[in-house]
């Protein structure tokens, strides 16, 4: 055979192998379904989301509406959001109770920035950004990172068993802030002039690094396992507990 004939055969073979490879790979990727719904939001709105497995991203925006988008892997989960008197509830645990296997569901939810946000998931990362409502609660039953960015809420709670927690926001006067992890690192980035009482406990690592806040009055207790005190007049309350990880404060 001539070189030209061999070259044609080679091209055909490569092309066929490419198709086979594509089909093989495509067979491994689980089929994804999309879910999308939008709700009008009033002056007071609350979002409650309970996910099973998957990432959850909540973003605050200036529109007066709540946009819920989800990508679902097979076996596809049931999603039946409920909107009642200003509260939007998405509960995948309830909606899929008794089902053995439910695929991963990744949420992207956009809400008015003044929304009260209450998020729970069994496994997966949670990210909440640009929220200044009365509440931000992020709870992971097992493992996953919690990232709270540009938060101005007066009540913030974040807890997981395994994973990092990062908070970047302002501490409101009289607010309550609680962060708790069993194994991970907790980082808090707050303004220099924040006024708060603080109890930070890292019993295993004793790794608590504080930033230079305004008017500090701090002391270490229990052989360095806990730091207590206040910055400024101490109007807000900040409680941080990390059983087996570090706690670090950063100046915003």
């Amino acid at each position, binding site marked *: 055979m001539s070189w030209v004939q061999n070259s044609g055969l080679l091209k055909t073979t490569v092309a066929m192998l490419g198709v086979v490879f594509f089909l093989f790979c495509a067979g491994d990727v689980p089929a994804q379904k999309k879910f999308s719904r939008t709700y009008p939001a009033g002056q007071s709105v609350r979002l409650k989301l309970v996910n099973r497995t998957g990432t959850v991203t909540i973003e605050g925006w200036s529109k007066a509406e709540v946009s819920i988008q989800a990508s679902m892997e097979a076996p596809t989960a049931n999603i039946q959001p409920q909107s009642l008197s200003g509260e939007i509830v998405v509960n995948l645990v309830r909606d899929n109770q008794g089902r053995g296997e439910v695929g991963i569901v990744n949420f992207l939810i956009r809400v008015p920035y003044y929304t009260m946000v209450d998020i729970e998931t*069994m*496994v997966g990362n949670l990210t909440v950004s640009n929220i200044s409502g009365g509440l931000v609660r992020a709870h992971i039953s097992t493992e996953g990172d919690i990232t709270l960015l540009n938060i101005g809420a007066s009540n913030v709670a974040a807890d997981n068993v*395994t994973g990092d927690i990062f908070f970047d926001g302002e501490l409101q006067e009289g607010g309550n802030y609680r962060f708790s992890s*069993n194994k991970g690192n907790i980082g808090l980035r707050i303004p220099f002039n924040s006024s708060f*009482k603080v109890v930070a*406990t890292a*019993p295993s690592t004793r790794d608590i690094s504080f930033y230079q806040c305004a008017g500090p009055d701090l002391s270490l207790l229990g052989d360095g396992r806990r730091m*207590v005190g206040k910055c400024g007049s101490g109007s807000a309350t900040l409680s941080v507990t990390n*059983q087996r990880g570090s706690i670090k404060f950063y100046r915003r």
Partner: protein
Amino acid sequence: MNCEDCKGLITAFMDNDLDESRAASVRQHLARCGECALVCEDLASIVDVCSNEGDSLLPENNSHQMWCRINNILENEQKAVQQQIVPEPPRRGLWHLSFWQLASGLACIAIVSSLLTVVAIRNYYEPAATDSIAQTTSRTFVDRVLMKVGLAETPQQQIERKLRDRQAAIEYWNARVQTRRNQWDNTTRAAFDRNMREIDDSVNEYTTILQRDPEDDLSSEMLDSVLNDKMNLLRDFSDL
């Protein structure tokens, strides 16, 4: 004859039982003594009444029995008059207590006021919210005293009680989880087991520390916290 002799003979005199000489003496005395004459008149009146009322009141030929009766009546009347005159003993009201009742009442008041004082002092010295954590490692003097006398739980007892309470709740939720975990997919089951191990490691760590030093309040608090985490983990997964 004096008055006493006269009164002793006056009944016999009225019954004509005296001889003449003694009757004359009584008569002379009655003539002189107004008091005895009055007694004689009273007795005569009584005899008249008895005679008028009927024979049943006056047994025949038995003056001695009659006078005994009369004396009994008079004595009963005198007693009745005395009972009326003698002031009634004051009634035993609520305020009239025996010595032992009074003593036990005072003892109760002393105990109650002592306990109230202790509670008040404890509250007064209760650490403020701002520095509650700072003072958890140091017990107040009152606390120590109460522990010594058995009125308050020792740190070890507190830990044991907390552990028992938590353990009961954990067992309940764990039983629910065990009935459902076979339905979970492998990823969920693996995540649950992995994180449960992490929590159990922390529980074991604090339990060991507390066995060495039961008064380590911070470890006690952390143990309580991780047990709470464990319970929450079980509860979350019991709904799946």
